[in-house]
Protein backbone atom coordinates (compact mmCIF):
# COMPACT_ATOMS: atom_id res chain seq x y z
CA UNK A 1 0.00 0.00 0.00
CA UNK A 2 2.89 2.35 0.77
CA UNK A 3 4.15 2.30 -2.81
CA UNK A 4 0.70 3.28 -4.08
CA UNK A 5 0.13 6.07 -1.59
CA UNK A 6 3.49 7.65 -2.34
CA UNK A 7 2.69 8.10 -6.01
CA UNK A 8 1.91 11.81 -5.89
CA UNK A 9 1.37 14.11 -8.83
CA UNK A 10 3.93 16.87 -8.76
CA UNK A 11 3.45 20.10 -10.70
CA UNK A 12 5.77 23.06 -10.17
CA UNK A 13 6.91 21.65 -6.86
CA UNK A 14 3.42 21.15 -5.42
CA UNK A 15 2.16 17.65 -4.75
CA UNK A 16 -1.32 16.25 -5.19
CA UNK A 17 -2.85 12.90 -4.30
CA UNK A 18 -5.48 13.09 -7.04
CA UNK A 19 -4.56 12.80 -10.71
CA UNK A 20 -7.96 13.99 -11.85
CA UNK A 21 -8.54 17.67 -12.57
CA UNK A 22 -12.09 18.75 -13.20
CA UNK A 23 -13.95 21.73 -14.67
CA UNK A 24 -16.98 23.57 -13.35
CA UNK A 25 -18.85 24.42 -16.56
CA UNK A 26 -22.03 23.03 -18.09
CA UNK A 27 -23.64 21.24 -15.15
CA UNK A 28 -27.45 21.23 -14.93
CA UNK A 29 -27.32 23.24 -11.69
CA UNK A 30 -24.92 24.44 -9.01
CA UNK A 31 -25.59 21.63 -6.55
CA UNK A 32 -24.89 18.98 -9.17
CA UNK A 33 -21.62 20.72 -9.95
CA UNK A 34 -20.60 20.95 -6.28
CA UNK A 35 -21.46 17.33 -5.60
CA UNK A 36 -19.75 16.07 -8.76
CA UNK A 37 -16.59 18.02 -8.09
CA UNK A 38 -16.49 16.63 -4.54
CA UNK A 39 -17.16 13.07 -5.66
CA UNK A 40 -14.45 13.24 -8.31
CA UNK A 41 -11.82 13.55 -5.62
CA UNK A 42 -10.16 16.29 -7.66
CA UNK A 43 -7.97 18.77 -5.84
CA UNK A 44 -7.45 21.11 -8.78
CA UNK A 45 -10.63 22.62 -10.19
CA UNK A 46 -10.71 24.91 -13.23
CA UNK A 47 -12.69 28.13 -13.41
CA UNK A 48 -13.00 30.91 -15.95
CA UNK A 49 -12.59 34.63 -15.26
CA UNK A 50 -15.68 36.63 -16.16
CA UNK A 51 -17.29 40.00 -15.55
CA UNK A 52 -19.06 39.99 -12.26
CA UNK A 53 -22.79 39.55 -12.42
CA UNK A 54 -24.40 42.67 -10.99
CA UNK A 55 -27.63 40.96 -10.06
CA UNK A 56 -27.84 40.24 -6.34
CA UNK A 57 -29.83 37.07 -6.85
CA UNK A 58 -27.34 34.75 -8.37
CA UNK A 59 -25.29 32.66 -6.02
CA UNK A 60 -21.64 32.87 -6.79
CA UNK A 61 -20.09 29.55 -7.66
CA UNK A 62 -16.76 30.53 -6.23
CA UNK A 63 -18.29 31.36 -2.85
CA UNK A 64 -19.87 27.92 -2.78
CA UNK A 65 -16.66 26.12 -3.76
CA UNK A 66 -14.94 27.99 -1.01
CA UNK A 67 -11.40 27.17 -0.04
CA UNK A 68 -11.85 23.45 -0.41
CA UNK A 69 -10.09 23.24 -3.77
CA UNK A 70 -7.15 24.75 -5.58
CA UNK A 71 -8.91 26.88 -8.17
CA UNK A 72 -7.08 27.07 -11.48
CA UNK A 73 -8.16 30.00 -13.66
CA UNK A 74 -8.29 29.45 -17.40
CA UNK A 75 -8.00 31.96 -20.23
CA UNK A 76 -11.05 30.61 -22.02
CA UNK A 77 -12.47 33.06 -24.55
CA UNK A 78 -9.14 34.75 -25.19
CA UNK A 79 -8.09 34.90 -28.80
CA UNK A 80 -4.94 36.99 -28.41
CA UNK A 81 -1.81 36.96 -26.31
CA UNK A 82 -2.74 40.34 -24.79
CA UNK A 83 -6.15 39.12 -23.62
CA UNK A 84 -4.67 35.93 -22.22
CA UNK A 85 -2.10 37.86 -20.21
CA UNK A 86 -4.67 40.26 -18.78
CA UNK A 87 -6.94 37.35 -17.90
CA UNK A 88 -4.08 35.51 -16.22
CA UNK A 89 -3.23 38.63 -14.21
CA UNK A 90 -6.86 39.13 -13.20
CA UNK A 91 -7.02 35.46 -12.24
CA UNK A 92 -3.89 35.86 -10.14
CA UNK A 93 -5.34 38.88 -8.40
CA UNK A 94 -8.75 37.31 -7.82
CA UNK A 95 -7.55 33.91 -6.62
CA UNK A 96 -4.13 34.63 -5.19
CA UNK A 97 -2.53 31.99 -7.37
CA UNK A 98 0.14 32.34 -10.04
CA UNK A 99 -1.05 29.20 -11.77
CA UNK A 100 -2.91 29.58 -15.04
CA UNK A 101 -4.42 27.17 -17.54
CA UNK A 102 -3.50 28.86 -20.79
CA UNK A 103 -5.87 28.32 -23.66
CA UNK A 104 -5.92 30.37 -26.83
CA UNK A 105 -8.29 28.97 -29.38
CA UNK A 106 -7.42 29.32 -33.06
CA UNK A 107 -10.57 27.91 -34.68
CA UNK A 108 -14.17 28.23 -33.51
CA UNK A 109 -15.44 25.03 -35.03
CA UNK A 110 -12.82 22.62 -33.74
CA UNK A 111 -11.70 24.74 -30.79
CA UNK A 112 -8.14 23.71 -31.60
CA UNK A 113 -5.47 25.80 -29.89
CA UNK A 114 -3.56 28.45 -31.79
CA UNK A 115 -0.05 27.09 -31.39
CA UNK A 116 1.74 30.27 -32.44
CA UNK A 117 -0.11 32.48 -29.95
CA UNK A 118 0.15 29.79 -27.32
CA UNK A 119 3.92 29.77 -27.53
CA UNK A 120 4.12 33.57 -27.45
CA UNK A 121 1.78 33.80 -24.47
CA UNK A 122 3.60 31.06 -22.60
CA UNK A 123 6.88 32.88 -23.02
CA UNK A 124 5.40 36.14 -21.74
CA UNK A 125 3.57 34.58 -18.82
CA UNK A 126 6.57 32.59 -17.65
CA UNK A 127 8.58 35.82 -17.63
CA UNK A 128 5.83 37.44 -15.55
CA UNK A 129 6.24 34.68 -12.96
CA UNK A 130 3.25 32.51 -13.80
CA UNK A 131 3.11 28.75 -13.55
CA UNK A 132 1.77 28.00 -17.01
CA UNK A 133 -0.27 24.90 -17.87
CA UNK A 134 -0.95 25.27 -21.60
CA UNK A 135 -3.78 23.46 -23.35
CA UNK A 136 -2.22 22.41 -26.66
CA UNK A 137 -2.50 20.18 -29.72
CA UNK A 138 -1.33 16.61 -29.48
CA UNK A 139 1.78 17.65 -31.38
CA UNK A 140 5.17 16.65 -30.00
CA UNK A 141 7.03 19.59 -31.47
CA UNK A 142 4.68 22.19 -29.97
CA UNK A 143 4.91 20.44 -26.60
CA UNK A 144 8.70 20.44 -26.67
CA UNK A 145 8.73 24.13 -27.50
CA UNK A 146 6.31 24.87 -24.67
CA UNK A 147 8.58 23.02 -22.28
CA UNK A 148 11.61 24.94 -23.54
CA UNK A 149 9.76 28.18 -22.82
CA UNK A 150 9.17 27.12 -19.25
CA UNK A 151 5.69 25.59 -19.16
CA UNK A 152 5.22 23.64 -15.93
CA UNK A 153 3.26 20.91 -17.70
CA UNK A 154 1.74 20.31 -21.10
CA UNK A 155 -1.92 19.58 -21.65
CA UNK A 156 -2.47 17.98 -25.03
CA UNK A 157 -5.98 17.32 -26.24
CA UNK A 158 -7.31 13.81 -26.69
CA UNK A 159 -9.92 15.00 -29.19
CA UNK A 160 -11.88 18.28 -29.61
CA UNK A 161 -13.36 19.89 -26.49
CA UNK A 162 -16.76 18.42 -25.67
CA UNK A 163 -16.62 15.84 -28.46
CA UNK A 164 -16.38 12.85 -26.14
CA UNK A 165 -14.37 10.95 -28.72
CA UNK A 166 -11.57 9.93 -26.37
CA UNK A 167 -7.95 9.78 -27.43
CA UNK A 168 -7.74 10.23 -31.18
CA UNK A 169 -3.99 9.74 -31.44
CA UNK A 170 -2.67 7.54 -28.62
CA UNK A 171 0.76 7.19 -30.22
CA UNK A 172 1.19 10.95 -30.24
CA UNK A 173 0.26 11.13 -26.55
CA UNK A 174 2.72 8.35 -25.78
CA UNK A 175 5.50 10.23 -27.56
CA UNK A 176 4.70 13.42 -25.67
CA UNK A 177 4.76 11.50 -22.41
CA UNK A 178 8.10 9.93 -23.27
CA UNK A 179 9.87 13.04 -24.53
CA UNK A 180 8.54 16.14 -22.82
CA UNK A 181 10.04 15.74 -19.35
CA UNK A 182 7.17 17.56 -17.62
CA UNK A 183 3.84 16.22 -16.38
CA UNK A 184 1.51 15.53 -19.29
CA UNK A 185 -2.12 16.20 -18.46
CA UNK A 186 -4.58 14.95 -21.04
CA UNK A 187 -7.10 17.75 -21.47
CA UNK A 188 -10.21 17.67 -23.74
CA UNK A 189 -12.22 15.03 -25.49
CA UNK A 190 -12.67 12.54 -22.67
CA UNK A 191 -16.11 10.92 -23.09
CA UNK A 192 -16.34 8.16 -20.56
CA UNK A 193 -14.34 6.37 -17.88
CA UNK A 194 -12.35 4.10 -20.19
CA UNK A 195 -10.98 7.16 -22.03
CA UNK A 196 -9.56 8.48 -18.78
CA UNK A 197 -8.10 5.08 -17.94
CA UNK A 198 -6.51 4.88 -21.37
CA UNK A 199 -4.88 8.27 -20.91
CA UNK A 200 -3.32 7.13 -17.66
CA UNK A 201 -2.20 3.82 -19.17
CA UNK A 202 -0.40 5.79 -21.86
CA UNK A 203 1.62 7.35 -19.09
CA UNK A 204 -0.13 10.68 -18.64
CA UNK A 205 0.47 12.23 -15.25
CA UNK A 206 -3.14 13.35 -14.96
CA UNK A 207 -6.40 13.92 -16.78
CA UNK A 208 -8.46 17.09 -17.00
CA UNK A 209 -12.10 16.75 -17.98
CA UNK A 210 -15.36 18.66 -17.70
CA UNK A 211 -18.07 17.86 -20.26
CA UNK A 212 -17.78 14.09 -19.74
CA UNK A 213 -19.06 14.56 -16.20
CA UNK A 214 -21.15 17.74 -16.49
CA UNK A 215 -23.24 16.51 -19.40
CA UNK A 216 -23.53 12.87 -18.40
CA UNK A 217 -27.05 11.77 -17.51
CA UNK A 218 -25.89 11.30 -13.94
CA UNK A 219 -22.96 13.64 -13.36
CA UNK A 220 -22.44 12.53 -9.76
CA UNK A 221 -22.11 8.90 -10.77
CA UNK A 222 -19.85 9.75 -13.68
CA UNK A 223 -17.65 11.77 -11.34
CA UNK A 224 -17.23 8.69 -9.17
CA UNK A 225 -16.51 6.64 -12.27
CA UNK A 226 -13.83 9.05 -13.42
CA UNK A 227 -12.18 9.03 -10.03
CA UNK A 228 -11.95 5.25 -10.14
CA UNK A 229 -10.92 5.27 -13.81
CA UNK A 230 -7.95 7.56 -13.27
CA UNK A 231 -6.81 5.53 -10.27
CA UNK A 232 -7.20 2.26 -12.19
CA UNK A 233 -5.27 3.58 -15.17
CA UNK A 234 -2.46 4.87 -13.00
CA UNK A 235 -2.10 1.58 -11.09
CA UNK A 236 -2.13 -0.36 -14.37
CA UNK A 237 0.55 1.90 -15.82
CA UNK A 238 2.80 1.44 -12.81
CA UNK A 239 2.05 -2.28 -12.54
CA UNK A 240 3.59 -3.03 -15.95
CA UNK A 241 1.10 -4.72 -18.24
CA UNK A 242 1.64 -7.99 -20.07
CA UNK A 243 2.60 -7.69 -23.74
CA UNK A 244 0.00 -8.23 -26.45
CA UNK A 245 0.66 -11.43 -28.40
CA UNK A 246 -0.62 -12.85 -31.62
CA UNK A 247 -1.00 -16.37 -30.27
CA UNK A 248 -2.63 -17.77 -27.15
CA UNK A 249 -0.70 -18.94 -24.13
CA UNK A 250 -2.60 -21.12 -21.67
CA UNK A 251 -2.79 -19.72 -18.19
CA UNK A 252 -3.52 -23.03 -16.42
CA UNK A 253 -0.55 -25.51 -16.21
CA UNK A 254 -0.36 -28.21 -18.92
CA UNK A 255 0.90 -30.96 -16.56
CA UNK A 256 -1.13 -33.33 -14.43
CA UNK A 257 -4.08 -33.25 -16.77
CA UNK A 258 -6.89 -35.64 -15.98
CA UNK A 259 -7.07 -38.41 -18.56
CA UNK A 260 -3.39 -38.42 -19.57
Amino acid at each position, binding site marked *: MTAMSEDFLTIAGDTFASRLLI*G*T*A*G*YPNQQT*MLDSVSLSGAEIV*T*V*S*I*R*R*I*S*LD*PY*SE*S*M*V*DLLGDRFR*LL*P*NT*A*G*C*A*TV*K*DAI*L*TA*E*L*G*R*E*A*LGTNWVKLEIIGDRETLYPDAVQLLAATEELVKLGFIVLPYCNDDLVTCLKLVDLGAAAVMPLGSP*IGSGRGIANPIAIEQIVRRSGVPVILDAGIGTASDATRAMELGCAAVLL*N*TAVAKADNPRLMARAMRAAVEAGRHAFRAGRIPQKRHAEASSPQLGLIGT
Partner: protein
Amino acid sequence: MSLKPGPGGAITVEVPETIAALLSRHAIDPGIRYLAVAVNGVVVRRAEWTTHMARKGDTIEVVRPFQGG
Protein backbone atom coordinates in the same frame (compact mmCIF):
# COMPACT_ATOMS: atom_id res chain seq x y z
CA MET B 1 -11.27 45.47 -24.01
CA SER B 2 -12.05 42.14 -25.47
CA LEU B 3 -12.54 39.94 -22.42
CA LYS B 4 -15.42 37.89 -23.76
CA PRO B 5 -18.65 39.34 -22.32
CA GLY B 6 -19.68 37.14 -19.45
CA PRO B 7 -22.68 37.12 -17.24
CA GLY B 8 -22.09 40.69 -16.20
CA GLY B 9 -22.32 43.85 -18.25
CA ALA B 10 -19.85 46.66 -18.80
CA ILE B 11 -19.09 49.14 -16.03
CA THR B 12 -18.79 52.79 -16.99
CA VAL B 13 -17.29 55.73 -15.19
CA GLU B 14 -18.99 59.13 -15.40
CA VAL B 15 -17.18 61.21 -12.79
CA PRO B 16 -13.75 60.58 -11.29
CA GLU B 17 -14.04 58.26 -8.32
CA THR B 18 -11.98 55.68 -6.52
CA ILE B 19 -12.31 52.04 -7.49
CA ALA B 20 -13.87 51.37 -4.10
CA ALA B 21 -16.51 54.04 -4.69
CA LEU B 22 -17.14 52.76 -8.21
CA LEU B 23 -17.74 49.25 -6.90
CA SER B 24 -20.06 50.44 -4.14
CA ARG B 25 -22.03 52.46 -6.63
CA HIS B 26 -22.65 49.26 -8.57
CA ALA B 27 -23.78 47.50 -5.39
CA ILE B 28 -20.57 45.44 -5.31
CA ASP B 29 -19.16 45.07 -1.83
CA PRO B 30 -15.45 46.07 -2.15
CA GLY B 31 -14.69 43.60 0.63
CA ILE B 32 -16.01 40.65 -1.36
CA ARG B 33 -13.55 37.83 -1.88
CA TYR B 34 -12.14 36.64 -5.20
CA LEU B 35 -12.66 39.98 -6.94
CA ALA B 36 -10.25 41.56 -9.40
CA VAL B 37 -10.29 44.90 -11.19
CA ALA B 38 -8.45 46.17 -14.25
CA VAL B 39 -8.42 49.76 -15.52
CA ASN B 40 -7.46 50.27 -19.15
CA GLY B 41 -6.02 46.79 -19.36
CA VAL B 42 -3.91 47.02 -16.21
CA VAL B 43 -4.78 45.20 -13.00
CA VAL B 44 -5.32 47.48 -10.01
CA ARG B 45 -4.57 45.62 -6.82
CA ARG B 46 -7.05 45.51 -3.96
CA ALA B 47 -4.76 47.55 -1.67
CA GLU B 48 -5.06 50.45 -4.12
CA TRP B 49 -8.83 50.46 -4.52
CA THR B 50 -9.35 53.26 -2.04
CA THR B 51 -6.73 55.45 -3.70
CA HIS B 52 -6.70 54.70 -7.42
CA MET B 53 -8.98 57.13 -9.29
CA ALA B 54 -11.04 55.95 -12.24
CA ARG B 55 -11.85 58.63 -14.78
CA LYS B 56 -14.47 59.15 -17.45
CA GLY B 57 -13.62 57.10 -20.49
CA ASP B 58 -11.61 54.52 -18.57
CA THR B 59 -12.29 50.92 -19.51
CA ILE B 60 -13.07 49.02 -16.34
CA GLU B 61 -13.16 45.28 -15.91
CA VAL B 62 -14.51 43.85 -12.69
CA VAL B 63 -14.22 40.09 -12.66
CA ARG B 64 -14.68 37.03 -10.52
CA PRO B 65 -14.09 33.33 -11.07
CA PHE B 66 -16.99 31.72 -12.90
CA GLN B 67 -17.87 28.33 -14.34
CA GLY B 68 -15.13 27.09 -16.65
CA GLY B 69 -13.50 23.95 -18.05
